[in-house]
Structures are given as C-alpha cells and as structure tokens.
C-alpha cells in the first residue's frame, strides 16, 4: 500500500534528510518510525503525505507514484490518508465537532451525512460528551483525540501520526496510543513516528529505526540497500 524504493531527500544547501530508504507498509499494518531528532521520521511522513517530493527514488501511496503524480491528484490521495501531528493543528475558533466536520465539508461531503458521521467518530475517540467544547477547553490528550477524529472521519486507509504523543503526559500518551491500536485493530494501517522508546518497547509492532536519514534497523527485515550500514 505504501512503498518506498531507494528514496532520498535533499534540501537546499545540500542537507540530506533521507538517503536511499526502502521499505513497504502493508494493509492493516502498524509500524513505528523511530530515531533521534533529525533522523528523517518527519521527512518520511511529509513524503508519504506528498507534502514534499523525493529528490530521487520512487514512492508509491495507494498506487500513486509521487514522482509522476499530478498536483490535482494529491488532494484526492490525501483524503485516503489521515494525518495527526504533535501540535494537534486544530482551529481554535471552532468546537471539537466543527473541527471534525470541517474535514468533511472541505471535501464536499453531502450535508446530511456530516452530523451523524462526526458524532460517530467523536464517540469512537471517546469525546462524545465534549463535542461542543473549544480546543482551549480541552486537555492535550483530548485535543489530540479531536485531531485523530478529524483524521478518521474520511475513513482513511492509513493513519500517519507524527509524534502524536510528543506533547502529552504519560496518562494521555497511554490513552492516545491505545486509541491508535484500536483504530489499527479495526483495519486501518498506522504509521507512527515517535522517539518514545518506552512506548515502542511496550508494543509488539514493526519498528523501523532511522539515523541520519538511513534505515539502521527494521524489525520486519525489509530488503536493505547494499550500501546501508548494518546494525
């Protein structure tokens, strides 16, 4: 479903963010992307989300090659992907339900189906009682749940979570992580970028570890680059 083949990404002034990265994520899989800051986790998320394009190599998401994808194909592809960020990225002047509904409205969903779908997904993330609360009235964990609800409301194939627990305390972290596991158990693939090794160790999911833009460990032992350093 998601496949990276010898993907490299260089930014201006020659800064290498990713170097010859190859891996594949199957349908229904849960995978951690780990590694220190600057290892390339967020770059992979941006490439998968087609916010950026690789400098070289190929990347396919749901059959769409990011190198050849037309600009107008990208919004449609993004509707198949849910994205969650460390900083939640909620609209402060809208209630939780309005934030979630916004994701349906901008994709032109029929008006009649918006309210029931929003209620269902808010109930799924355990926030049915706080539907009319504004982000400022919610805790960090609750705000992240709203962000997850917004990512889920379009029934994505994959949920991309970029450090979703980075701003949360232990209790909220456990809650959000459990929610991601539940979502995965229901059939949605999840790619979670995190530097929280405790969280990674506690769960028995595939782990892809990055360092300096290269894969240094993949628990699924995906084919390695010949020049990739062995661990």
């Amino acid at each position: 479903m998601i496949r990276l083949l010898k993907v490299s990404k260089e930014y201006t002034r020659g800064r290498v963010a990713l170097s010859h990265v190859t891996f594949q994520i199957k349908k229904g899989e849960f995978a951690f992307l780990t590694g220190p800051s600057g290892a390339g986790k967020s770059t992979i998320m941006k490439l998968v989300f087609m916010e950026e394009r690789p400098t070289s190599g190929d990347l396919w998401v749901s059959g769409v090659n990011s190198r050849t994808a037309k600009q107008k194909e990208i919004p449609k592809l993004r509707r198949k992907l849910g994205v969650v960020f460390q900083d939640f990225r909620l609209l402060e002047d809208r209630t939780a339900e309005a934030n979630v509904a916004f994701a349906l409205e901008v994709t032109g969903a029929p008006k009649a189906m918006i309210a029931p779908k929003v209620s269902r997904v808010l109930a799924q993330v355990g926030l049915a009682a706080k539907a009319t609360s504004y982000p400022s009235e919610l805790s960090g964990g609750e705000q992240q749940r709203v962000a997850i609800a917004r990512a889920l409301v379009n029934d994505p194939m994959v949920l991309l979570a970029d450090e979703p627990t980075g701003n949360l305390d232990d209790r909220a972290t456990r809650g959000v992580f459990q929610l991601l596991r539940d979502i995965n158990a229901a059939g949605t693939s999840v790619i979670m970028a995190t530097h929280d090794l405790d969280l990674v160790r506690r769960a028995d999911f595939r782990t892809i570890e990055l360092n300096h833009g290269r894969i240094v460990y993949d628990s699924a032992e995906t084919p390695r680059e010949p020049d990739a350093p062995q661990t």
Partner: protein
Amino acid sequence: MIQLALRETVTAARRAPLLTALAIITIAFSLYAFGLFGLVALNIRQSIRAVEERVEVRAFLRDSSSIYAVDSAMAAIGKYPEVARVEYVSQEKALDRARSEMGEFSDVFDQAVLPASIEVHMRAGLRSPETVAAVAKRIGSFPIVDDVRYGEEWVGKLYRLRTIASFVGIALGLAFAAVAVIIIGATIRMTVLAREKEIAVMRIVGATDSFVRRPFLIDGLIKGVFGGILALLMTWATHRTVNEYFVQTVFFDNRLMLVGLLAGAFIGVVGSMVSVGRQLKRI
C-alpha cells in the same frame, strides 16, 4: 461549496473584525489617492479641452470680396478634413463683438475699421501647431483672403502643455496605480497570513487548491468592492468641498465610477489570488 466558501469568508471577518476593517480602509485610502489623482487629471483635461475649443483660424477678407466668392471659399474650407465648422463674421457682427468685448472703448470703433472675416474651427485631435499652420496657409491662398491669423504662439504653447499634461498624467497614474496595487496586495497578504493555520488544515484534510482559494477570492472581491465604494464616497466628498470653497470642478461620470469600483474588485481578487498562491506554495 460556494455556500461554504461564503460562510468561511463571513467567519473570518467576524473572527478578525479589526483586520477586516483595516484591510478595507487601506484599500479605500489607496484607491482614494488614485481617485483624487484621477479627478485632478480629469479636470485638467476638461480645462485644456475647453481652451482647445477656442483654437480657430481667422481669415480677414478683402473689402472687395463678392458674397459668391466668400460662399464658395467657405464651402471649400468646410470640406477640409481638419475643419469642424466655418462661420462668416460680417463687418457689423465684428463691430458688435468688439464693442461688447471692450465696452469702455465702444465709441472708438468705426465700422470701416473692422473687416469681415471667416472663422474656421478645427476638429478635436487635429489642433496641433503644424496642422493649424497648414490649414491657415491653404486658407491664405484664397484670393479673397487678405490676412490669416491663428495665434501661432499660443497654439504652440497650448499643444506643448497638453502633451506634457498627458505624459505626466500617464506616469503619475501608473505610479499611483502601482502604489495602490502594492499596498492592497500587502494588506491582503496580511489577512491571508492570519489564516495560515486554516489553509494548512484545509490541505491536511484533502481540500483542493481551488477550494482553498475560493473563500479568499470572495474575501478579496468583497474587500475590494467595499474599499472602492468608500474611496468613491471620499473622493466625492472632496469634490463637493472643493466646489463649495475653492473652484468648480467636474466629477466622474457613471461609467468612470463603475470602472473605479471594478478596479477595486479586480485588485482585491488578483491580490488575494497572488497571496494565496504564494501561501499554497509555501505550505
């Protein structure tokens, strides 16, 4: 979708009323400066045109000229492409004119002093010194014509003034328009930046670029139109004040007012399009 775009526009205006008001006022003042310039240019042009109307070639006739010779000369001159109309001024009429124009010397004039003449009025756009001189020369070749006068010196000066006014008008007009576009563009950019997060969220959830642009284009259009109306009102108030206390001036006709409003709307839409386009590339 349009309904949602309109709702987003209203929501944004309600969320940041000060920024919205500031944007409209900035657009209004930029267009007001341009409008004032337009008003000055329009009035200068009107004044020059009024003076130009007085550009005429006067052919003084020999006393012995027969009425038939005068008639045929007038008919021939009237057919010149540069000539708008030809008028015969008899000795009596010339005397009446002189007496009314110089009242205190009215007794001095004697009928015999003033010859009959033909007044030749030039067509608009064909009043350059060269054209007037050429027509005067042709008229002078008629045997019945004794002398031809056309105010050679002041026609030259008027023509130079008109040319300078046109060039300065175009240069200043372009400069004012450029300043208005830059200021309005920067103002709209500010409102787009204030909604940066919203644009980012729209893209995250899969909104197309045209969908993201739509509320901003409506926003730019509304601000441009309101700014244009406000600018027009301020220009009109200034025109009224000038008329009341200083000098009589003319105001824009309906067509020019509509052009002003459309210019406001156009700058608003284009400013928004450019700003959102830049933002979309950045995010």
